[in-house]
């Protein structure tokens, strides 16, 4: 969510029930601008809030040149003092989904994670239950990474790949049309593409090399893991991920205004097969 939208979350993210309070909005609006200036970011965005038991984490990111690969994340517990979010470690990526406690709000806290004897996601075979440790800061970084990989989306044509390979925001993005906005195919994962470039290109007939380089979300499994609402009488499209409850993407149809934000407790919901009706 860009800085301009921070002060008016009531019309956008309120469609999922959560907003930034007036105070948070104002503080973020100013402190993020300072952060942008310090780091010489071309653009800075508010990413979301992860609720902890004692304190909440606020996450923001900016980029200098590349809007896809060059994103640098910052976090804060009070909206004013920003710290660099560490790179997600391989160990952390494995342990984070296994951690069942809630975020506390203390980045230095070390949590013990009990690995079952027959845990399969760990690289080695365990002969006995094991306890491993994970720092909350690393856990936060991995959670943000996972959400970026699985939930964060942009509308088609909002990102533009220049001939030199650098991804920038498309200045000539005019917004989606009404019919387009109701299709999952027009929303793309904001992550390094996992599919081959020609697969993503050939999913549509009106392909364009510069804007169809990201994975579309219509192939996500299972069918129905994205819920798409056309709200406010048809002028706003709101997408929510069932995997990450609390993630909301909004786009004002026909305008270049779009954004996403995550307001949640940082826990992935893996119970989707039980939650949906498939027949």
């Amino acid at each position, binding site marked *: 969510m860009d800085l301009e939208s921070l002060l008016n979350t009531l*019309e956008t993210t309120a469609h999922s029930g959560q907003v930034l309070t007036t105070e948070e909005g104002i503080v973020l609006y100013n402190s993020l601008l300072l952060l942008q200036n310090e780091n010489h970011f071309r653009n800075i965005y508010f990413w979301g809030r992860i609720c*902890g038991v004692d304190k909440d984490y606020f996450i923001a990111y900016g980029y200098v040149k590349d809007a896809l690969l060059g994103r640098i994340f910052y976090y804060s517990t009070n909206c004013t003092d920003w710290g660099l979010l560490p790179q997600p470690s391989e160990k952390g990526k494995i342990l984070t989904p296994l951690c069942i406690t*809630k975020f506390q709000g203390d980045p230095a806290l070390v949590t013990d994670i009990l690995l079952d004897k027959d845990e399969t996601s760990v690289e080695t075979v365990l002969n006995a239950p094991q306890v491993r440790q994970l720092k909350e800061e690393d856990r936060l970084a991995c959670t943000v990474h996972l959400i970026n990989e699985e939930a964060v989306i942009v509308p088609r044509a909002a990102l533009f790949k220049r001939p030199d390979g650098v991804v920038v925001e498309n200045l000539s993005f005019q917004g989606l049309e009404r019919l387009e906005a109701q299709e999952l195919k027009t929303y793309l994962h904001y992550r390094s593409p996992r599919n081959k470039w020609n697969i993503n290109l050939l999913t549509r007939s009106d392909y364009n090399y510069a804007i169809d380089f990201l994975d579309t979300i219509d192939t996500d499994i299972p069918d129905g893991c994205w819920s798409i609402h056309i709200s406010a009488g048809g002028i706003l499209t709101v997408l929510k991920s069932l995997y990450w409850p609390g993630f909301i993407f909004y786009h004002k149809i026909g305008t270049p205004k779009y954004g996403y934000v995550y307001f949640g407790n940082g826990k992935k919901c893996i119970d989707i097969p039980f939650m949906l*009706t498939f027949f």
Partner: protein
Amino acid sequence: MIFDYDDLKKDDESGSGLDYDNEFTKAKSFLQKSSNLSGDNVYDHLTEVLNKILAERPENVIDFFEEYSRKVKEQRFIPQTDHLEDIYVSPLRYELANKFMPFLKPAPPEEASTVDPEDLDIADMSANNMLQLLYYFEQAGIGIPRDEMYAIMLSMRRLIKSEPIASIRFWGKIYGTFKNYIVVETELREDEYLKEIEELEKQKQEEEMALQAAMQADDAVRLGDIGDIEVEAEEPIRKDKKVPRHLPPVPIIQFEEPPEPPSEFPGVGVNKKVYYVCNDPCHPWIRLPDVKPKHIVVARQIYRAFTGNLDQEIITYPEFPGTEKELLRAQIARISAGTQISPLGFYTFGGDEGEEEEEEEEEEEEEGGGAKIKTTYKESKRYEPVPMRDLTDGSMAFWVHHTLYILPQGRTTWWNPYPQAGGEEEELGEEEEEEKPKGPKLEPEIGPPLLTPLSEDATLEAVPPWSVRVSSRLITDYALAIVRSNLWPGAYCFSTQGKLFQNVYLGNGLKYMAYNFTPLPLPPIQAEYPLGPEIMEMSDPTGAQEEEWRIAHLPKEKPAKFGEEEQAEEEEEEEEEEDDD
């Protein structure tokens, strides 16, 4: 290219000078050569693109040059003179505006009625200033779009005029995968509850009658069936004793369903409040049915996302007895029971005046169940606002539950499925005394009483049940205390320095589970027949064993003189063999 070409020319026609005009015309005519696919040419296209760029003067245009070029091309395919454009396409919000407009017109002036306004019995809406509420919501970090909030307020005003409602409150919003539910919590007028109870009892009697009739009919049919089977089965056996063999009797289902606890009466326990929902504030409100204990029991065992369609079938294991309507009602009851809280001392049991106490006792006796739990409370007149420091205290000792805990049985008061004769259980309702299935004496389930502080709440799976926040760190004079539930993500309560407080739920109606959801395992398979040699699989005898048997059963050596006898013996042998099989 032209440059190179120039050089070449220089070499060829040295001295004669360049024929610039000629070259220019040649180059231009090349650029103007139209494509034989689309009919476009580069010259016109570049002119148009440059024209567009110069007219719009966008920033860093070189980075998006291709995009611009493409857009100009696209533009060309849109016919400039389309005679079909007479059809007007309505703007995006048209439909909503159309639906919303009737609400926005001021109501026609009412006829001056002779009834005193106080007797009109219209619920008090003064506590439901939704825009004020929205202001507090926003401070608490939650919200509903402003126009929707306004529409809800208008819609609630309509509801109280059309339904016999004594009090109304905005309960919250449940987000579904296709549509969302807006929920309001109401209390009906006393006489309305009584009417409903009467109706229920009438219905119950009718059902019982129907059930008895059905059972009698059923018995008759069953007896008839058995008779038929016996007759059919007996006949062939008499003719030929060996084949087919006697079949064991058809197994009888021995599982007896445990008696279903009766639902609580309207206006009591989990059915104390009546809930109305709608998908959109412009749509009519739909009343949710009263919750039955079985709905709550099953709702606790399943994990289901709401779709937004009240008639959606719920296909789960264990089977949910109803549609999404019932599930929604059960979840609302669970959420209310778990998350409706108030500052300490705001409500009391009202033990000050003697009369009220008596009334309360009477009510309790009416409810039955022999409960000694107080189920009514009222606003305390001597309430002093709890200071902010206490409200935001991490121990949560200054917040209390004001909705009754729902027992595992699915009721707020325990119902004994196997009432014992005599003793304490005499207070039980009459209908339970009529039939007394003998059963084990059960330990009554008990929950925490009303107005228990939150500090008594159990910590489940290492998740502290509540988190508390102050809405502002800068302007503490007007800050709100915000309590959010960690077990029901989306349940909030805020309080303005202890004076005003409100509970609200904005979430997807699902409980937090630290270890994720595990469906109930299937019950063990029942034994069809008692285990015995008749139904056990045996291994066939080997050749050697058969031979042994044959030798052991050899006929005693007799002087075989009469052919008839021999034949008879052989027959006997055969019979024996068959018997042993």
